[in-house]
């Protein structure tokens, strides 16, 4: 049974990591804890549901939902935050604005489509799991693990080795210095918003498929876990988010399997508290290197 627990842990952990990748990138580049991020997750799931109910195959519904969620993110970011950014408002202001907006958006979505659980049409994706050594894993679960791994690798590659990645790292620390070097920081911000919205949307689709249950507030539950993951991994650290996600997923699965599922949701936060106590900048975080 251990093998199955580990598989469950890796799948759950990859799901957390997948969601957290865009969350941590938003923070890392835009320097904002953007709570609307959870909404893009719910929106992605509903957009894919809408597309599949109208006959689209999942191979079409997934990119459609991701792209649409990306545009929603760009729109909401510029509507809610660009003004605050221009005036260099304190971080708490943007936190409160995105919190208020998120509550409003969830409420609006619930009013529009109801709060009951909805499901993807049957037969949308091969549901018979692969079996080996008494353990099993489904196609959706494999997709979640692969997407999380490839996306994390891709993002790290972009940040480290491309011109846009260089610009993202520079403006993350000092947007004005970035502008002076010729970086159109507004344009890069829009690209990052789009990318993060699309990641949230795609993870909403995949995790909605995996749980086969879609509700307006699914993003809120996920955001709480995502928060733990990105703080544990170090805010803005893409590789850290992947490892922290897997760690929390595995810990939860093993707790549920060998201790009691009652403690499952608490154990990730226990890890977070203990880690922060020992390492205030997260598992891999270093103290600030800036010198006067």
């Amino acid at each position, binding site marked *: 049974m251990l093998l199955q627990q580990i598989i469950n842990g890796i799948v759950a952990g990859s799901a957390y990591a997948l969601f957290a990748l865009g969350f941590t990138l938003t923070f890392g580049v835009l320097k904002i804890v953007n709570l609307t991020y959870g909404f893009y997750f719910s929106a992605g799931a509903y957009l894919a549901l809408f597309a599949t109910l109208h006959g689209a195959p999942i191979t079409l519904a997934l990119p459609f939902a991701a792209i649409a969620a990306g545009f929603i993110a760009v729109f909401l970011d510029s509507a809610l935050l660009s003004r605050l950014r221009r005036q260099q408002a304190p971080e708490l202001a943007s936190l409160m604005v995105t919190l208020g907006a998120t509550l409003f958006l969830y409420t609006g979505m619930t009013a529009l489509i109801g709060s009951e659980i909805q499901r993807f049409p049957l037969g949308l994706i091969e549901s018979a799991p692969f079996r080996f050594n008494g353990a099993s894993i489904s196609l959706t679960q494999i997709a979640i693990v692969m997407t999380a791994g490839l996306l994390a690798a891709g993002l790290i590659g972009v940040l480290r080795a491309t011109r846009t990645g260089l610009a993202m790292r520079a403006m993350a620390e000092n947007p004005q210095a970035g502008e002076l070097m010729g970086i159109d920081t507004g344009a890069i911000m829009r690209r990052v918003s789009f990318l993060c919205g699309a990641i949230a949307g795609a993870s909403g689709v995949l995790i909605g498929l995996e749980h086969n249950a879609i509700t307006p507030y699914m993003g809120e539950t996920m955001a709480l876990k995502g928060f733990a993951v990105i703080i544990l991994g170090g805010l803005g650290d893409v590789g850290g988010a992947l490892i922290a996600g897997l760690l929390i997923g595995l810990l939860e699965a093993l707790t549920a399997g060998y201790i009691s599922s009652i403690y499952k949701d608490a154990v990730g936060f226990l890890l977070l508290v203990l880690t922060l106590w020992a390492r205030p900048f997260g598992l891999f975080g270093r103290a600030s290197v800036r*010198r006067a």
Partner: protein
Amino acid sequence: MTDIMLEARGLTVGYGDKLVVRNVDLAVRRGEIACLIGANGAGKTTILRALSGLLKLRAGSVRLNGEEIANRPAHAIAARGMAHAPEGRQIIAAMSVADNLRAGAYLAPSAAEISRRRDAALARFPRLKERLTQQAGLLSGGEQQMLAIARALMADPTLLLLDEPSMGLAPLMVEEIFSILATMKSEGRTILLVEQNANAALALADQAYVIEAGRIKLEGPARDLIDHDGVSAAYLGG
């Protein structure tokens, strides 16, 4: 094309409802160094930030090579050939020295051009060469200042704005920075320099402006200002 590379007219800038720069006219000629000197809080940094697009003008015009650039975004002004090494260095502390230099050449047309500029910058600042992989935030203050200038040079600018390149440096390092500026001048670079070190700045510059409380108090060829009684009393320690 005219001989004037940068020309500001009626430059007026403020923060909130307070104007701190009023009706400033200044010009920088091609191949020359112009310098701004003045007491702390006179408005020198504010003038540079307005010229490079970091601050909006309340009034006035700025022409770079004859083209009006007032109130264009800073990145667009950078794309027209102005590089600004801001006050306080503003290097990217979390990135390596090499990445800071690469970022300075963000608008360079090709990889070959970036490495050409990098070789030139490192030849000018050999200390940075040994520290390429080091995190920029861990450089000494003087090295950070060199990196800030080198990064601005990576843009291969037609006009370079330098805000107190000698700030906080030991006398020997100040001398080194000024000798590098002198070399850049002899190579024909056009520079607008802000300096507290008024003696050295006036000895180096062609044209000088004395800023007082946000206005131009005196202007003229730098050598004339060295001998000017008011300037020497206020800024040259005698």
